C-alpha cells in the first residue's frame, strides 16, 4: 500500500516536472505562435488578426456616431466632424489590411474578437498556400472608400432605402478613370480627390 501511494504521488509529480521542462529538452520547431518577429513586433498572422479586430471596432464606432445622431444627441456640425475622424481611422485600418494582402471581402466583418482572430488565421493559411500576392497596391482611395461604405452597410444589414439619409455628408465614391495623384502635404500619404482630411494622419486637405 505504501509503495502504491509513493508510486502514484511520485509519478504525478515527476510527470508534471517532465511536462514543464519538455520544451527545453525538445525545442519547438515552429516558434511562430509564441514569439514576436525579429523586430519585436507581431508576426504577420497576428498582425492581421489585430487589424481585423481594429477594423471591426472602427466600424462599430462609426455606427455609434451615426446612432448618436439618430438619437438626437449630436448637432450636424459635431456629427460631420466626428464622422470624418472615425472614417479616417477606418480607412487607415483598411489600407493597412490591404497592404498586408487582405482583399476586399476576404474576411467578413464580425464584431467578435475571437472569431476575427480565427478568420484571420484561416485567411493567412489560405494566402500562404496561394503564394504571397500582396505586392501590388493599386486600388485607389475611392475603391477603399466604397468598400468601407459597403462593408458598413452589409454589417448593419440596412436596406439602402430610397429616402434614407446617406450616412456621411459626402458624395458617394465615383469611379475615376485616371487617378489624379494627390498627396497629403503633411505626411505624404496618397489621398483621394474627394477627401477633406488625410486618411493617414488626419491633416486637413480642403
Amino acid at each position, binding site marked *: *500500500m505504501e509503495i502504491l501511494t*509513493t508510486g502514484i*504521488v511520485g509519478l*504525478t*509529480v515527476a510527470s*508534471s*516536472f517532465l*511536462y*514543464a*521542462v*519538455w*520544451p*527545453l529538452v525538445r*525545442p*519547438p520547431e515552429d516558434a511562430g*505562435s*509564441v*514569439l514576436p518577429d525579429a523586430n519585436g*513586433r*507581431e*508576426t504577420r498572422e*497576428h498582425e492581421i*488578426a*489585430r487589424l481585423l479586430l481594429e477594423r471591426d*471596432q472602427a466600424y462599430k*464606432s462609426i455606427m*455609434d456616431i451615426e*446612432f*448618436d445622431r*439618430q*438619437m*438626437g*444627441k*449630436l*448637432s450636424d456640425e*459635431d456629427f460631420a466632424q*466626428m464622422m470624418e475622424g472615425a472614417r479616417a481611422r477606418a480607412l487607415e485600418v483598411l489600407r493597412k489590411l490591404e497592404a498586408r494582402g487582405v*482583399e476586399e*471581402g*476576404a*474576411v*467578413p466583418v*464580425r*464584431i*467578435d*474578437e475571437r472569431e476575427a482572430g480565427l*478568420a484571420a*488565421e*484561416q*485567411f493567412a*493559411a*489560405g*494566402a500562404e*498556400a*496561394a503564394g504571397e500576392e500582396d505586392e501590388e497596391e493599386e486600388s485607389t482611395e475611392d475603391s477603399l472608400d466604397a468598400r468601407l461604405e*459597403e462593408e458598413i*452597410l452589409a454589417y448593419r*444589414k*440596412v436596406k*439602402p432605402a430610397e429616402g434614407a439619409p446617406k450616412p456621411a455628408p459626402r458624395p458617394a465614391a465615383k469611379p475615376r478613370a485616371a487617378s489624379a495623384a494627390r498627396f497629403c502635404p503633411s505626411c505624404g500619404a496618397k489621398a483621394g480627390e474627394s477627401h477633406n482630411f488625410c486618411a493617414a494622419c488626419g491633416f486637413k486637405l480642403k
Partner: protein
Amino acid sequence: MLFIELGSYGITAAFVLAIFSVIASVWGGLSRRADFILAGRNAAMAVFGLVTAASVALLWLLLARDYRVEYVAGHVDNQLNAFYRFSAFWGGQEGSLLLWVLLLCIFSFTVIVQNRDRNQVLMPYVTATLMVTALFFLTVLAFITPPFATLPTPPPDGKGLNPLLQDWGMVIHPPNLYLGFVGFAVPFAFCIGALVSGKLDTDWITSTRRWTLFAWFFLGIGILLGGAWAYKELGWGGYWAWDPVENASLMPWLTGTAFLHSVMIQEKRGMLKVWNVSLIIMTYALTIFGTFLTRSGIISSVHAFASSSFGWAFLAYLAIALAVSFGLVIWRLPLLRSEHEMESFFSREASFLLNNVVLVGMTFAVFWGTIFPVVSEAVKGIKVTVGPPFFNQVNVPIAILLIFLAGASPLLAWRRTSGKQFQKSFVYPSVVAAGGLATLLLFGVTHVFAVLAIALSIFSVATIWLEYYRGVSARVRHQGENAWTAFWELTMRNKRRFGGYIVHLGMAILFIGIAASSAYQQVGEVRLRPGESFSMNGIRLRYEGLRETRNPQYTSAFAKLAVYQGGRRLGDIEPEKRLYFTPPQPTTEAGIRRGFASDIYAVFAEAGEDGATFRFMINPLLNWVWMGGIIFTLGSLICFFPERWGRRRRALPSAYGSEGDYRAPDKSPTPAAAE
C-alpha cells in the same frame, strides 16, 4: 494515506513549478526564446494540474471524514451532511486559500488556452504575473498553513462546521466572492504584460474585457448574496453593516466599476491610460488586501471565521506588488501619454472621469474607515472603532452624487454635447424626477437623503427610458421595424451600451430600496405571552405559541406569529432559534414575510415562563434591493454575451448579392481559404 500525500506533495511540487514558470516565462520573454516561453507555459499548466489534484484530495478527505487530517477534524463532524462537508472546503483558513489558488490556476489555464496563438507579445509576462500570484498563495499553503497537516492521534469525531456557515447562502457566497477577487488577477496580469513589453495599446484591455466583467459581476453578486445571508441569519434586520470584511469586498468592486467605465474612454479616445493601469493595479491590490483582512484577523469582524497570525506575509506581498507595479507605470510613463485632450466638460468622457473620481473617493473613504482602528491603535495605542454612522455620513452623499451621474452621463455624447442638445436631453428626465420629488413630499417623505436618493434614482430611470425611447424610435423610423422588434434589436446590437443601462436600472432600483429601508425602518421590541398581540404601523402580530423540534445537529424553537393587517389575517411567520451541539452555539433564523411594499421581520430573542421576547421590524421597500440585484444580473449577462448573439437573421437586400442571411459570407469559404 494516498490523498494526504498527494495533496501535500502536490502543493510542494506546484510551489516549485510556479517558481520555474515565472523564471522561464520572464527569461523567455526578455530573450525571445520560444523554448523557455513554452516551458513557462507548460509549467503553469502543470501547476494547474497539481493544484487541482490537491483540491480533489482535500475534498475527498472531507467527504470521507478522514480525521487524521487536522483541517478535516477541525471543520466537519459525524453529523454534518455531504453538502456541508463539501462546503467545509472553504469553511476555514487553509481550505479557502486553496480555493483561491485553485480558481487562479483554472483562470490561468483558461487564459493560456484562449491566447495560445494570440497576444504573443504579452503572454509570457501574463503567465509570469499569474504565477507570481499563485506562488504567493502556494508559499502560504506550503510553509505557513499547510492544509494537509496531520494529527498524531485522530479524534473519534470532528469539531464541526461553524453553524453560521450552515446555510445555502454561505455555501455559494464565498466562492462567488472568490471568483470576483481572483478574476481581477487576469486583467491585472495583462496590464503588467503590457507595461513590461511596452505594447501599451488597447489590446490588453480588449483581450480582458470579458474577464473584468466576469470578476466584477461575481464580486457584485457575492456582495448581494452576503447581504441576503446577513439579513436572514444575523437577525439585526439589515443587510449591510460596514463590517471590515464587507468593506473589503466592496472596495475592489468600486474600483472595478470605475475601471469598467474608464477603459471605454481609452478605447474610444485613447485617453486616461495612466489612470486605467493604476485603477487595475489598485483593484488587484484591494483584492489581496481583502483576502488579508478576512484571513489575518487583524480587525475584529463577524467574518472572523478563520483568523491567524500570518498577516505579515500578505502585507509584504502587497507592498512588493504595489512597488513593482507602480515602478513599471513610472518607467512606462512616456508610452502612456494621452492621444487626445478633453474637449468639453459636457461630454461623456468628462462625466465618466467624474464618476471615476467619485468611485475612487468612495473607495478611499471606505478604506480609511476600515483601517482607522488599526492605525489609531498603532499611533495612539487606543483601538477606536469606526461604526456605521461614519460610513453612512461619508458615503451617502457620495452615493447620491453617483446616482445623479449614472443618470446624467448617458445623455451626453462623446467628445462634446452642445448646450442646446444638453438642455433638450435634460428637460424630460428632470421633469419626471421633479414629479417624483413632489409626490414623495406630498406623501410626507421628508428624510432629506432618502428623498434625494429616490428622486435622483427616478431621474436615472427616466434617462434610461428616454435612451430606449429614442433608440427604439430611431430604429422604427430608419429600419421600419415595429416597436418590440426594435427594442430587442436595439439591446442585442448594442449589448454593451444597453446592457449597461439595464445594470444602471438595477442599481437605481437597488438604491431606492436602500434609501427607503434605511431611512424608514421601524423597530419594536416587546415581550408577549401566547395570545397577546403587538401592533406597529397598521400591522398586528399575534403570538400563538411555541413549537420545538430536534435533529441530530441542533434543537430549534419556532415561535408562531400570526400577521394581521386591518383585521385580515395575512398569514404566519415563524422566527426560529437554534442551538447547535458541536460546536455549542445558538443561531437565529429571522421570520420574514416579504412583500413588494415592505418586509415584516421578526426575530425571536428568547422564551421563558412568562412569555417570549421578540424584535419586530418593518422594512419598507427592502425587496427592491434584491429586485435591483436581479436586474443587475440580467444587465451584466447582456453585456457579457458575445456581440453577435441573439441577433435576428434577416435576408440581405438583393443589392448585396445573396438570398441567405447576413452570415452567408461566413459559411461559404472565403475566396482565399478556398484555394
